[in-house]
């Protein structure tokens, strides 16, 4: 009798419970496109937000809904983008691998300090009170960019400047945002010539405050006038594609080295 009772009790409970679940399942099921899960799995899960969405999962939803394209994730490599595109059945746009480049060569040695800085050791804090360097445009050496990079692609080298590790950089642009002096820019990896200065001071002034500053002497623009101009006391590359490789040695005659190809210490 007792055995029977317990079997019945359990049976009834199991029955009722499953019935409840059936109802719940019918009434409360929320449909979710399985593609979202698949896409989310491929994404790098850095949740960096560089795509403009609140994290990778949100981006996955947006991609599946067709609000954005797979290649808008700057962090995913070509392979990842291709995979996502396959899931969605669309073709992947060509991705050009980009990398962050620093536009300053104001090393500890080259750029003079303006005084004894006492305060918060971040670039944005120092920038707020005018910086600790005589040059008002150059790197402050506190490494906000390196801290901002989620991929450990930036380290501060011995000379005080941030160096980008090309392989690790995903071109997410966090460093570009972080630098209060706007010294970072994303360039295609293949991009050879860079202006390593942002100083708009007149030549004599910039020369005084930093040995490696652009002094607007015009050697580079004379060497390659179709691609390089001097504007606001600073060399500016107007069109990277038009730089003739033949002229590079000529451009690199820059007396302060403010324009030219990357040097070893600029990256690892």
């Amino acid at each position, binding site marked *: 009798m*007792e055995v*029977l009772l317990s079997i019945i009790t359990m049976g009834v409970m199991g029955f009722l419970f499953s019935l409840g679940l059936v109802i719940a399942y*019918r009434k409360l099921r929320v449909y979710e496109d399985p593609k979202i899960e698949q896409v989310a799995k491929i994404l790098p899960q850095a949740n960096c937000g560089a795509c403009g969405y609140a994290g990778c999962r949100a981006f996955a939803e947006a991609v599946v809904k067709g609000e954005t394209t797979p290649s808008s994730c700057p962090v995913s490599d070509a392979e990842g983008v291709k995979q996502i595109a396959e899931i969605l059945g669309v073709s992947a746009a060509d991705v050009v691998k980009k990398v962050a480049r620093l536009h300053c060569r104001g090393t500890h040695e080259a750029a003079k300090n303006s005084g004894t800085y006492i305060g918060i050791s971040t670039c944005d804090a120092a920038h707020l009170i005018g910086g600790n360097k005589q040059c008002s445009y150059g790197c402050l050496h506190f490494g906000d960019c390196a801290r901002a990079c989620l991929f450990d692609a930036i380290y501060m080298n011995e000379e005080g400047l941030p160096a980008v590790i090309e392989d690790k950089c995903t071109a997410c642009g966090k460093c570009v945002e972080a630098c209060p002096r706007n010294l970072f820019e994303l360039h295609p990896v293949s991009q050879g010539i860079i202006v390593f200065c942002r100083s708009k001071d007149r030549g004599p002034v910039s020369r005084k405050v930093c040995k490696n500053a652009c002094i607007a002497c015009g050697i580079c623009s004379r060497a390659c006038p179709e691609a390089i101009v001097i504007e606001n006391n600073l060399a500016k590359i107007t069109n990277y594609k038009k730089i003739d490789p033949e002229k590079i040695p000529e451009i690199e005659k820059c007396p302060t080295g403010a324009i030219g190809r990357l040097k070893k210490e600029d990256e690892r």
Partner: protein
Amino acid sequence: MKLSTRMVVVLTSIGLLSGSFLATVGHLTKERIALNKQREIEEAIIQVVPGTVSSQRLYEERDLSVYGGKNEEGNLVGFAIHASGIGFQDKITLMLGTNTSLERTNRLAILDQKETPGLGAKITDRDSFLKYWENRDCSGTISLRKPAVSAAEKLLPSEINTITGATISSEAVLSIVNSSLEQVREIIKEGKLSSEAQDVN
């Protein structure tokens, strides 16, 4: 089979299987568990009412039961009062043996307690605390001797030595004992102590 049907069938059958399995296990262990429980009580009764051979439950309510201990001749040799109350941190359950007139204690046993080890837990100490409870006068209320005296002879017949550093636990035991004695007297007076008591075994 439709999904919903399958859901119901699977879960129901798992329930049925589990039910039957449990019923078997329950059945197999039931007696032993009951036996364990009963043995615990029995052993406690024998311990607190010396000379007991068989015992009967005479009264039961929550937190208070009364057992009668009988000797070989079947005569009542004393009561065993099973009671519980709150101690320092949690519940204390104890068994107190008295003579048939409820005037003298036989012995005390602590069945369950969660007092602080090394401190309140000394209420289970047979060589000190429990010893004071042997053969005390419980015709009135029992009281605590504070601070404790070293020679047990100095205690009044109705006094118990306090455990140094654990006044609260000592008091808790005391108040469980005193109030249950009180209740039992009341019960006897009202004649509620069952005469055709069930045998414990």
